[in-house]
């Protein structure tokens, strides 16, 4: 290909194709914005981000647990549901405020997940990984159907009473309820707290070490079992808070509400690169936005949202097999 007569036309063609692609993307975005007006577009993006922030809290629980024990904790979505129900009882039966309710939900979920970890996962730590996965599915079934019993939470949809009045602010036509602000605020606060724990404290260092190499961490005097339990507890606390926020945003709760958001959040964590806290956050925002944009802009979007969300996941995998932020592990012999 030294011949400039071939090289330069080829190069021009290649750049023309790149240009067309870029123009196509720009045109797509512009036509999306113009389709129903910029206000509608911004509104959809903000609604999508709100959902994404809730997913982020749940996704963190998945990604932390996966990062440390390589277990897809399918029961996490149901811990999320327990969080929503706990706050529901605290708010409507005992008239608690928002902050104590969310704190209670986090505490209950923490306790629940620690019990689950001790009973169902810890005995299987040296077993094949699939055994723990199956018990996770079992725990998930148990939580769903046990709480669906009449004297627990009941099998029906329950309408969730928000602990505060909904105020809607209008900024240039875009309607932003205070729910959105609260969800984003709580999520960012918890995320920062988590980042502080993981990056700045001694226990965070122990967690990172355990995630990296368990036997070595044990040799360094780290209580690996304790760290794993703590990871489950932190993940559950975030998931519980996510459950409360989800119920506030979409105030219809029932005991099977955790399945789909749980799956989406886990997918978001994988999309961002599993084991990565930042990746889970970015993946969740992407997932939430895609979902809401699909619903707002496609004529039958509300029925196709899951299809498109997972299509995006598969396309990302084909381009980058370890997710957006995931590290590429080179397998060595």
């Amino acid at each position: 290909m030294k011949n400039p007569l071939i090289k330069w036309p080829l190069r021009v063609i290649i750049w023309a194709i790149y240009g067309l692609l870029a123009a196509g993307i720009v045109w797509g975005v512009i036509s999306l914005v113009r389709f129903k007006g910029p206000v509608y577009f911004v509104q959809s993006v903000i609604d999508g981000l709100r959902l994404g922030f809730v997913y982020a809290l749940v996704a963190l629980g998945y990604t932390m647990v996966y990062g440390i024990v390589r277990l897809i904790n399918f029961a996490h979505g149901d811990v999320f549901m327990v969080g929503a129900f706990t706050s529901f009882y605290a708010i409507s039966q005992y008239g608690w405020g928002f902050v104590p309710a969310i704190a209670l939900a986090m505490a209950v979920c923490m306790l629940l997940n620690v019990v689950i970890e001790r009973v169902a996962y810890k005995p299987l730590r040296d077993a094949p990984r699939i055994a723990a996965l199956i018990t996770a599915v079992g725990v998930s079934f148990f939580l769903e159907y046990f709480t669906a019993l009449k004297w627990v939470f009941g099998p029906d949809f329950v309408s969730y009473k928000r602990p505060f009045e909904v105020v809607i602010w209008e900024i240039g036509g875009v309607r932003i309820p205070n729910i959105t602000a609260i969800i984003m605020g709580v999520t960012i606060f918890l995320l920062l707290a988590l980042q502080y724990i993981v990056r700045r404290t001694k226990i965070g260092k122990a967690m990172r070490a355990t995630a990296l190499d368990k036997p070595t961490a044990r040799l360094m005097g780290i209580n690996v079992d304790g760290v794993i339990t703590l990871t489950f507890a932190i993940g559950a606390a975030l998931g519980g808070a996510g459950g409360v926020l989800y119920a506030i945003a979409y105030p219809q709760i029932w005991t099977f509400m955790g399945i789909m958001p749980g799956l989406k959040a886990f997918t978001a964590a994988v999309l961002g690169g599993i084991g990565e806290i930042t990746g889970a956050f970015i993946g969740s925002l992407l997932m939430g936005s895609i979902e809401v944009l699909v619903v707002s802009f496609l004529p039958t979007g509300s029925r196709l949202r899951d299809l498109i969300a997972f299509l995006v996941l598969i396309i990302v995998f084909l381009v980058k097999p370890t997710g957006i932020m995931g590290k590429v592990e080179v397998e060595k012999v």
Partner: protein
Amino acid sequence: MARRSRFPSWLSTLLIALGIYILVLVAQSMEWISTYWYNVIQLAGLTAISALGLNLIYGFNGQFSLGHIGFYAIGAYGSALITKDFVTPWSGNRVGALSWIIAGQVGVLVAMLVLRLLRVGALRKRLAAALQAEFKPYEVRLAVTVVSLVLVGIGVGVGVAVAWGLQKGLAAGLAGLARWPDALGQNMVFFIALLCGGTMAALVAYLIGLPLLRLSSDYFGIATLGFSVMIYTALQNSDQVIPTMKGARGMVGIPLWTTWTWVFAALVVVVVIMRNLIHSSYGRAIVSVREDEIASKTMGNDVAQLKAMAFAFGAFFAGVAGGLYAHLFGFLHPSTFNFVKGFDPLIIVVFGGLGSMTGTILGSAIFALIIEGLRVLLPQGFEDWRFVVYPIILLLIMLLRQKGLLGTTEWGWLRAPLPPAREIPVPERAVSAKPEEVG
């Protein structure tokens, strides 16, 4: 050396299998069991077929697939479309759906063949090598992508053209089926429909498997889980494309053609195919991928192709099982193929023992017994407890038997065949050195 029993293992296996077959048949005709339990037994049998497919993918080839239920759904809906058309023609022609589905599959195969003949892979490599020296990597990548997209476009175009042409001929040729005597024509159509359901699932599996199987274990699991959710969502909206599939309302009017004989015959065929596959040189290559992919590659195995083929085989079994399911109850609803239900075959395979066909078959029977038995065992007023007790049993089993019921052991004819018997020549000296002569 393993001892050879006088009683050949294939005979004992055959006798037991025949015994079970006849027992169920007799029990049903003598009305020892209700129709309900007869259906449960059939369901267990077809679940075993589907689970065997997953065992091939996950247990023997080591690819963690969570999307098995998607292939089951493809097989169910695909075969249901064919047979429903034959009974109550929804496409205007009794063999319309059949000819379309066969032609479509041939079209896909032709497209794949064209791509193989065009040597896309080699072309891509040569193009990349030629451009590498003078062009930047992202320019090379784009050029290669565009060229391969064009080639794929050519292949797809040829495939569509072939399918289009073939459909007309097939519709005319197959029209004879409708004139066959009822019983014969019905069984023939059912057989073809089951096969088509299986091959549809296998084709889809092969096509999505080739790119997705490059992913590492858990990522592949999530991608296939996503695939099964996509299938589920597509089925819910299927009425927008094919009205007779009725989308979220559920497809009705499928003839009830599945009998215990069909299920049993399909199970036997699947078991024979799978047992012989696994103990062939090809099967050993499949197992070697599970043990160590890099070592397998070093031994000269085309790992990507092996994985895709095992995936397609497993999906084929799931598709056949789905077809049997569709004609067992005559009603298909997308929620049957929800991803939560997709864990059932995985639970069966793990419970029975990964990499044990005997375990999978046994596991399916026990699974059906637990799920349906709890319905009977639980006292009045405690029906809601069924799915509370079931996960507890599941948990206990997993905690007590971490490698599954049977681990990787097989029973009877399913065990790895021994090398053919040889007369071992006895050395002269050994013959003369008889114990009594020593003293």
